[in-house]
């Protein structure tokens, strides 16, 4: 990573983005979306993750098309996440299993290609500061997660995810739940943070969790609850 995202957020340096996609027209479209946000700058693009990152070693965020040259790049995603790269996966494959698998592999966010400019820019900005961002399609995947070992979400978190997935408007969710928009965002983000425990460990997940504690999104003792499974393995004093 190398760059300090907080410094980047304060405006000292724009956030560097690398785009990996094997469709030039999509690359151009995403580049045009990101160009509307002055804090973002596209450093490199291409269809090979290794080449793109050689060209832009300081990229803060990697936008990765999950399907490269006809195959799912989940292993590449895991490799980049383990190495501490903040990878935002964007794909036209929006079946819930694929989205959850991408989160498990360490993606900081999953964006459906049809979710558009607004969500794309918001997701990249959030990812650069290790903050969660849950676009509606991902909220749907989380709320419908059928896996037995899925994170335990509270009723409010579940409801906020469901309504956000349905309406795509946090203001409408807030009105429906009779809470503030800020609280809606908190419920959704808390649900996302709970997913950082799933799948393989990655540096990006730890960063997401650390930032969540820093932001007061979760309390450290709640993290303790998350880790209770592991705690059982430790000898009791």
């Amino acid at each position, binding site marked *: 990573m190398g760059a300090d995202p907080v410094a980047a957020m304060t405006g000292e340096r724009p956030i560097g983005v690398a785009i990996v996609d094997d469709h030039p027209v999509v690359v151009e479209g995403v580049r045009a979306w990101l160009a509307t946000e002055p804090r973002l700058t596209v450093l490199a693009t291409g269809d090979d993750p290794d080449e793109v990152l050689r060209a832009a070693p300081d990229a803060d965020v990697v936008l990765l098309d999950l399907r490269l040259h006809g195959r799912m790049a989940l292993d590449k995603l895991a490799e980049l996440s383990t190495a501490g790269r903040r990878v935002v996966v964007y794909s*036209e494959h*929006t*079946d819930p299993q694929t989205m959850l698998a991408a989160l498990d592999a360490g993606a900081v966010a999953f964006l459906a290609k049809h979710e558009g400019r607004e969500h794309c820019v918001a997701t990249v900005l959030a990812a650069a500061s290790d903050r969660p961002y849950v676009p509606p399609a991902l909220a749907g995947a989380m709320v419908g997660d059928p896996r037995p070992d899925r994170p335990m979400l509270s009723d409010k978190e579940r409801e906020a995810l469901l309504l956000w997935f*349905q309406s795509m*408007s946090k203001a409408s969710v807030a009105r429906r739940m009779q809470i503030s928009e800020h609280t809606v965002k908190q419920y959704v983000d808390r649900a996302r943070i709970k997913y950082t425990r799933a799948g393989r460990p990655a540096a990006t997940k730890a960063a997401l969790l650390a930032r969540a504690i820093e932001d007061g999104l979760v309390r450290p003792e709640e993290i303790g609850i998350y880790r209770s499974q592991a705690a059982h393995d430790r000898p009791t004093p």
Partner: protein
Amino acid sequence: MSADLGAPAHTAGAPEAPHTTSVPVPREPVSAEGLAAPAAVAQASDRGARIAAVAIALAWHVAIGLPAVWAARTEFAAPAVVLGAWALVAVAGAVAGVRLLRHSPLPPWPLAGLLLAVDAAVFAAVGERQLFTAANWVWGTLGWFFVLALWGRRVAGLIALLATHACIALVAVLWHGPDPVDVARYVMYVYGTFSLPVAVFVGSTVIVSLARERAAVSAAGHTMAAERDAAERGLRDRRDRLALVSSAAGRVLGELAAGHADPDDPEVQRRSVLAAARLRRLIAESDDVPDPLLHELRAAADLAERNGLPIDLVTIGAPPPLPVEIRRRLADPLTGTLADAEGWARLTVVSGPNEVVVSLVTPDREGPEATGPPPGEYDDGQVQHLYERDGNIRWAQTRWQR
């Protein structure tokens, strides 16, 4: 849920498989039962006959054959052969009996060959004096073991074996001197050894086939009754749907026909769209598909899209099987809102084993509600309906919870 349902835009516009409207007729369960029942009945009847045949053969061999053989053991020409043959048949018969009861009979023709070899050996070893006494155990007993060996096969095989047995005996009788008295006895013995095993063998076959026939007749009766019930249910369902269709489209069609309604009136147009949407959903309702709720919603979305409304249909999870009444209450309120929608629509279905939530969001616009369902909210205990407009979106949601 399948990836195609989750596909981003305008899924509903994809060409659907041709709809097959059908009356629900019971299929696999009834016919499978119809086939299985006669077989089961036949098997039960056959089992009783097998037990009887094994019991007769072994009891005869032990209770009648053994004492006579043992009493005359010193008077045989070759006692060891007669006694050894008895023991061999006892063992072979016991094994054959057990295997027959376990439905894995020994191979018939090797067993029959062994029995015929024993037959010949005993006739040769028994000696002239014991030829027609009970000590010559092969006379009476062997026929029953033939029955065990050839169980379930055609009676011709048994007759052939018994005929061979008779030939061996005839050779033995003639060998010891063709006495007319002996020949007469021989004929009597052969008759006796033929009649009973053949009677039991044929009788058991007849009983099993009769039982099978009777069970098949009874199963056919059940199948017919089930088909009649299904046809009646199908007819009733069709009448119910016809009543619903009439209430959905009848009035607006009637007004148009009578000239009371103006086709150029936007209000009339909206009512027609709504009626068409309801009709489309009702038609989809009777289709025989794995996910009826999704199929019905797709039908509604399909129609809306054909009317020029871009619509996203996103599904998460697979809905559990729901009664048609619940499906109607989940889908109908949204059908009304969809008929009223302009601009775009987002239809989502989130399903789990205990909950199904359907939501429709469309942009809000000025003006009163058209012909959709009353913009109220209700909760009838099974399905909850929420509807609201906030100036930004119109949001209808139905939720079923187990």
